[in-house]
C-alpha cells in the first residue's frame, strides 16, 4: 500500500502492463523522451526502448490508424492523445475502423487498442485543452469507454483496459493527475473495469458521477452531512457500457438522483443515466432526476471556467432542489 498521485499510479500501471506482456506498446506525441506533456509515460522509453515506446509523428489519425494495424499484427498499443481537443483528427479512425473491425470481421480481427485521453477543464488552459468529449465516444457502438477518478482506479483500470480485447477509450481527469490517494499494487481483486462503484454510502439522496467530478461530489456530500443530509455518491467508472445496476439499487433506497458531469448536457452521459433511471425506477422516485453539468456552449476562455464547471455549490443547489420536491 502506498500513497501516490494519479500520474504516478498510471505510470506504474503502464509499466506493469508492459512488463507482463511484451506486445504492449505505448505510442503518441512526446511520450518518449519527454515522458508525455503530463509525464504519465516518464521513464518508460528509457527502460523499454524506442520500439515499445514510440515518439510518433504529429498526427492523431496516424497514431490511431497505425495502432489498429499494429493490433491486427498482434500488438496491444496504448495510444496517448495529448489533450482532449486533439482527438478529433483521429476521430475518423476511431469511429470508422477501431470501433467496427471486430464486428465487420465477426470476431476474426480483434483490435485491443487503448486510447488514453486526458480530459476536462480546471487547469486554466487555452482553447481545445479542456473538453469533455466522452459522450461522443459512448455513442459509438463497438467502443468501450471508461473514466478513472482516483489513483487506485487509475492504476488498475489502465491495466484492465490494456488486457481487454476490445478497444477502450480511457479518460483521465487531468486536473486530478497531481492529487494523491492510496494504491495497493498487490491487490488481488480490483473491481472489474466495467462496473460502477459506491464511493460513499448514504441514505438521503443518490449522486451519480464520474471522472473529475467524483471528488467534487464527495466534497459536496461532506458539506451536506454537516446539514444532516446523508448523500450516497456513486462513481460510474464505466460510461459505455453504463453499469446502472448500483445506481438503480441506490435510487430505490433514496428515491432521489442527481447526475453530475462537467460535459455539456445535451445528448450526453448524464442524459442517458437520467433517462434510464427514470424508466427503471419510476415508482421509487420522489423527485425528477436532476442534472448538474457544464453548459451547452463551447468550453469558455479559462477565466470563466469557474463559472462553467459545476462546483460544490451547484451540486448542493441541485440536492436542495431535489429534496424540496
Amino acid at each position, binding site marked *: 500500500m502506498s500513497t501516490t498521485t494519479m500520474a504516478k499510479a498510471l505510470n506504474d500501471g503502464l509499466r506493469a502492463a508492459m512488463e507482463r506482456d511484451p506486445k504492449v506498446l505505448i505510442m503518441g506525441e512526446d511520450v518518449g523522451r519527454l515522458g508525455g506533456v503530463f509525464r504519465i509515460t516518464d521513464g518508460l522509453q528509457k527502460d523499454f526502448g524506442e520500439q515499445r515506446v514510440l515518439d510518433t509523428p504529429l498526427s492523431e489519425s496516424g497514431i490511431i490508424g497505425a495502432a489498429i494495424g499494429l493490433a491486427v499484427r498482434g500488438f496491444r498499443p496504448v495510444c496517448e492523445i495529448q489533450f482532449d481537443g486533439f482527438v478529433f483528427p483521429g476521430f475518423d479512425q476511431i469511429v470508422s475502423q477501431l470501433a467496427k473491425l471486430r464486428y465487420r470481421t465477426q470476431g476474426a480481427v480483434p483490435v485491443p487498442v487503448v486510447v488514453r485521453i486526458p480530459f476536462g477543464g480546471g487547469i486554466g488552459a487555452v482553447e481545445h485543452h479542456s473538453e469533455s468529449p466522452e459522450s461522443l465516444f459512448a455513442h459509438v457502438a463497438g467502443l468501450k469507454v471508461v473514466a478513472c477518478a482516483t489513483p487506485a482506479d487509475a492504476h488498475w483500470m489502465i491495466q484492465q483496459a490494456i488486457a481487454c480485447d476490445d478497444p477502450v477509450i480511457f479518460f483521465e481527469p487531468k486536473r486530478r493527475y497531481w492529487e494523491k490517494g492510496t494504491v495497493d499494487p498487490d491487490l488481488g481483486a480490483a473491481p472489474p473495469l466495467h462496473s460502477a462503484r459506491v464511493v460513499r454510502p448514504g441514505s438521503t439522496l443518490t449522486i451519480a458521477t464520474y471522472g473529475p467530478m467524483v471528488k467534487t461530489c464527495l466534497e459536496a456530500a461532506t458539506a451536506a452531512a454537516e446539514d444532516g443530509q446523508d448523500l450516497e455518491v456513486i462513481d460510474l467508472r464505466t460510461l459505455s457500457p453504463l453499469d446502472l445496476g448500483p445506481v438503480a439499487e441506490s435510487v430505490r433506497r433514496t428515491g432521489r438522483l442527481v447526475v453530475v458531469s462537467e460535459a455539456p448536457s445535451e445528448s450526453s452521459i448524464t442524459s442517458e443515466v437520467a433517462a434510464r433511471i427514470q424508466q427503471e425506477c419510476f415508482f421509487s422516485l420522489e423527485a425528477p432526476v436532476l442534472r448538474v453539468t457544464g453548459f*451547452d456552449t463551447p468550453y469558455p476562455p479559462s477565466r470563466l471556467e469557474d463559472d462553467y464547471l459545476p462546483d460544490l455549490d451547484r451540486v448542493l443547489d441541485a440536492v436542495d432542489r431535489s429534496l424540496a420536491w
Partner: protein
Amino acid sequence: MEEPQAWVPGDPRSRPSRDQVVAGLKGVDEGGVELVQLLTPEGERVHHEHFDRYTADVTLDDLKSLYRDLVLVRRADREGNSLQRHGELGIWVPLLGQEAAQVGSGRALRPSDMCFPSYREHGVAWTRGVDPTELLGIFRGTDHGSWDFAARRFHPYTIVIGNQCLNAAGYAMGQRFESKVGDRETGEATICYFGDGATSQGDVHEGFVWAAAYDAPLVFFCQNNQWAISVPLERQTRVPLYQRARGYGFPGVRVDGNDVLACLAVTRWALDECRTGNGPVLIEAFTYRMDSHTTSDDATRYRLADEVELWKLKDPIERVRVHLARRHGVEQEFFEAVDAEANELGERLRAFCRAMPQPGPERMFSEVYADASPQVDAQRAEYLAYHASFAGEEEQA
C-alpha cells in the same frame, strides 16, 4: 572505409544513408545549398541571382524599420514570457528566434491579402497592425483573441495543429472564384503559417492537395524551427520539407528563416506568383525555436544546449544591427531609440495586462449561435439568476 555514395534521386543504384538523410534535414551547412540567404549571420549582404530583385526597392529607412519591428516583436514576446512567470498569463507561446521569419514574411503582405496564423505568430500579427495587447486575452484566458479579424485580415489563432491549412485553402479558392487573381497590382493572395511538426497532419497534406487542385493563390509558410515540442524534425520527414512541394505539383523554396531580408524577398516572390495565378507555393523558413515550446515545456529534457548555442550565432536581430552599423553607418542613437521604444512597449503591455477586466459570466453564453437557442438561453437565465443570488450574499456579508 567505403566512400559514402552520392545520392541521385531516382537512380536505383544510389540511396541516401541515414546520416545523409539527417544531414539534408538539418541542413548542417546553414540550411543546405538551396537555402536562400541575403544577409549572413555576420551581417554581410550577399547577392542572389533570382531573389535580389524582390528587395531592390528596400531603402535604408525600410531596413531600419524592419530592424525596429524585429526588436519590438522580440520585446513583446519577452514581456509575454515574463507576464506568464508573474502569474498574469496562464501560458505563453514564445517566438524567440523566429522574429525574422515572421516579420519578413508578414511585411511582404498587402492589406488586401489574407493571413491564417497558427498560435506562435505574434510577429506576423504585428505586421498586420494587430496591437500586441490584443493577443493577451488568449493567454490570460479572457477571450480567444480580440483584434478585428476582418479588418486586419488576420484570422484567429488556430491551436489544433494543421486545421488552418484547409481553411486557408478554402479562403484562397474564394479569392480565385471572385476573380481576384491574375493581376500583379490588384491581385490578392493568402498566406498560411504552420510548423514543421504540422506537416505530418492530414489536414496539411489535404491543404496542399486542395490548394493545388484549385490553383489557389495560397502561400504555405512553414516555420521549420526543428522541433515539435520534444520531437525532432527527423521524426516527421525524410526529405527537406520544401522538397515535398514537388510531389503536389507546386514549387517549394527553403529560405534562411533568421534572415529578415531573405524572408521578405522570398515571400514577396511567392505572393506575386499567387497573385498572378501561379500559386500555390510552399516556403520553408529554416529557423530555430530558441526558447521552450511554451512556458509549460521544459526543453532541457530533450534538447542539447550545444544546439541552442550554435543557433545563437545566427540571431536574426543581431545580423541586421551589424549590417546597419557597419554597412550603412547607422549611429548608436538609432539603436538606443529603438531600445527605448521597446521598453515603453514592454511597460505598456504589462500595465494593460494587469488591468484587463475579468469577463462576466454572460460572456460564456454569448454568440454560441447566430439564431437564438432555447437551450442556451434557458441555461443563461438560470445561471445568471443563480450567480446573482451569490452576489446578494456577498453584499450582505
